[in-house]
């Protein structure tokens, strides 16, 4: 077989085509594009508003569904019941002084409604877009409002509040370097600081103004059309916690505002 014939061989052409495809795939998957720009999904998030790039619709009315830790959430547990909290001795000292009657008399009823605990209380949420980059969350229990700001730069001198200063971001589940499998494959992450001291449990277990709250919001769409939101909260507190406190809460989406009932804070 001559050299010319070998070059014209369809088998060899196929092999070369295969190798060319392999080389191209390798170039794209391993070395990446020649100019080292961020991947397209990262650029997209930076260029469009949080509302436009939202992976799911979080707006609407939600009701909490309390199937776990009922005695800690539906009612205020007994004084001195600290089971499950990785508290420091300093935290116990504070909690042991808790007196619900005094608290009510001094106007401290809302200490159990701060950002670090509020998502686990029995409540309804009304979530709306306050503007293109701010999610507003009204909570009927304790009549509280949170603002989750995307692309927000915090001010160091900001005044502490019960609900603190929250920065939000849509996070790709695979991390920033790998494109998500679908546009919905992201979750909402919220980081909150500048919180006034409050309670990690309504029976007086404290968190300090040094606490940092990190939240993860995941959405579930069921085949029957029901939507659920799972909120995982993590509280770090160098003063009152030996380990981060991680809790979760479940919310079911409602068709309308039925049951929405703003109620003042209560120590009970």
């Amino acid at each position, binding site marked *: 077989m001559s050299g010319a014939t070998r070059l014209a061989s369809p088998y060899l052409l196929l*092999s070369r085509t295969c190798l060319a495809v392999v080389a191209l795939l390798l170039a794209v998957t391993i070395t990446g594009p020649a100019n080292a720009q961020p991947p397209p999904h990262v650029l997209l998030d930076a260029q469009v508003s949080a509302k436009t790039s939202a992976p799911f619709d979080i707006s609407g009315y939600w009701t909490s569904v309390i199937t776990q830790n009922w005695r800690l959430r539906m009612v205020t547990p007994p004084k001195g019941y600290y089971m499950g909290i990785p508290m420091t001795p300093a935290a116990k000292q504070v909690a042991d002084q808790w007196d619900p009657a005094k608290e009510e008399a001094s106007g401290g009823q809302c200490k159990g409604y701060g950002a670090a605990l509020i998502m686990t209380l029995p409540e309804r949420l009304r979530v709306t877009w306050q503007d293109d980059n701010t999610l507003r969350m009204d909570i009927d229990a304790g009549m509280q409002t949170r603002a989750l700001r995307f692309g927000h730069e915090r001010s160091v001198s900001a005044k502490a509040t019960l609900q603190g200063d929250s920065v939000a971001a849509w996070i790709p589940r695979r991390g920033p370097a790998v494109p998500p499998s679908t546009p919905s494959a992201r979750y909402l992450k919220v980081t909150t600081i500048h919180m006034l001291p409050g309670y990690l449990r309504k029976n007086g277990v404290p968190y300090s103004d040094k606490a940092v709250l990190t939240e993860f919001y995941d959405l579930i769409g069921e085949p029957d059309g029901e939507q659920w939101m799972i909120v995982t909260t993590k509280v770090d507190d160098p003063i009152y916690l030996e380990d981060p406190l991680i809790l979760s809460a479940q919310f079911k989406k409602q068709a309308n505002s039925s049951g929405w009932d703003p109620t003042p804070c209560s120590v009970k």
Partner: protein
Amino acid sequence: MRRTYNQAAIIFLALVTAGLRLSAQIDLSGSWAARNYGDALGNRPGPGPTPVDYLGLPINENARERALLYSPSQISMPERMCSLYAPIYVLLGPFGLKLSNETEPRNGTTTAWRIAAWEDMGTITIWMDGRPHPSANAPHEPGGFTTGVWEDDVLTTFTTHMKTGVLRRNGVATTDRATLKLRFFRHDDILTVTGRIDDPLVLTEPLYLTRTFQLSKVPPYPAVGGPCIPGDEGVPVGSVPHYLPGKNPFLFEMTTKYNIPHEAALGGAETMYPDFRKKIRDSYEFPKPCTADCGGPGAFPLR
């Protein structure tokens, strides 16, 4: 020579494709420590839940009546001492998760995920290779039959063919008609697992439960205990400890000890929702301060 070229090209393509497929998943493998920052309601070691505490469970009348017949001494029956809980227990038990994947050797794709056994729950195998669930008439096994898919980078599993199990370790039971759907949400080193349990014979609404775990450098404790050998704990073979209807001595335990209204303790879908709190808030009186099993600094079992 032609064959060599072709083989090399095909192998190369297969490797690249495998690499792309592998990167199309979230890696869940590893040891995940349980973060049981809650109440002693069945996912805590030790005594577990209080008798006749059905708070927040959407159970029907039949399930409640059956639960009220339950005596905790049933776990001392030689016939039941070593029985394993159904996979629903992964949402109730106190232990962490050891997750691993089984790969297809030629292309590296994951054919199954495994949740390692606990001392009282068998290994859960989550088949990822698209195989169908068995016929409805197929035998039910302690571990059930589970398949999984990735939905928006969230591992979603579905379990059928379970044997009867527990919804709460104080007598609230599931039937062999129950199904379980789990979602594994990974957020860096935190894993949130949410389960939906359906059981047409027990529940009036689906029951959702969520647990959280944190990535750990050491295996979950304890991975598995020693082999279970049935012994004599005072319950004779053939005898089933129980309370006759209306004779449960713990019927008012929740009310007596914790001032929880009796209607709440008996559970039902109504007790899951915030409106129920409003119903009981004004009549609720603070119970006496805690004096035993109260937790506190240094008394925090991470597991």
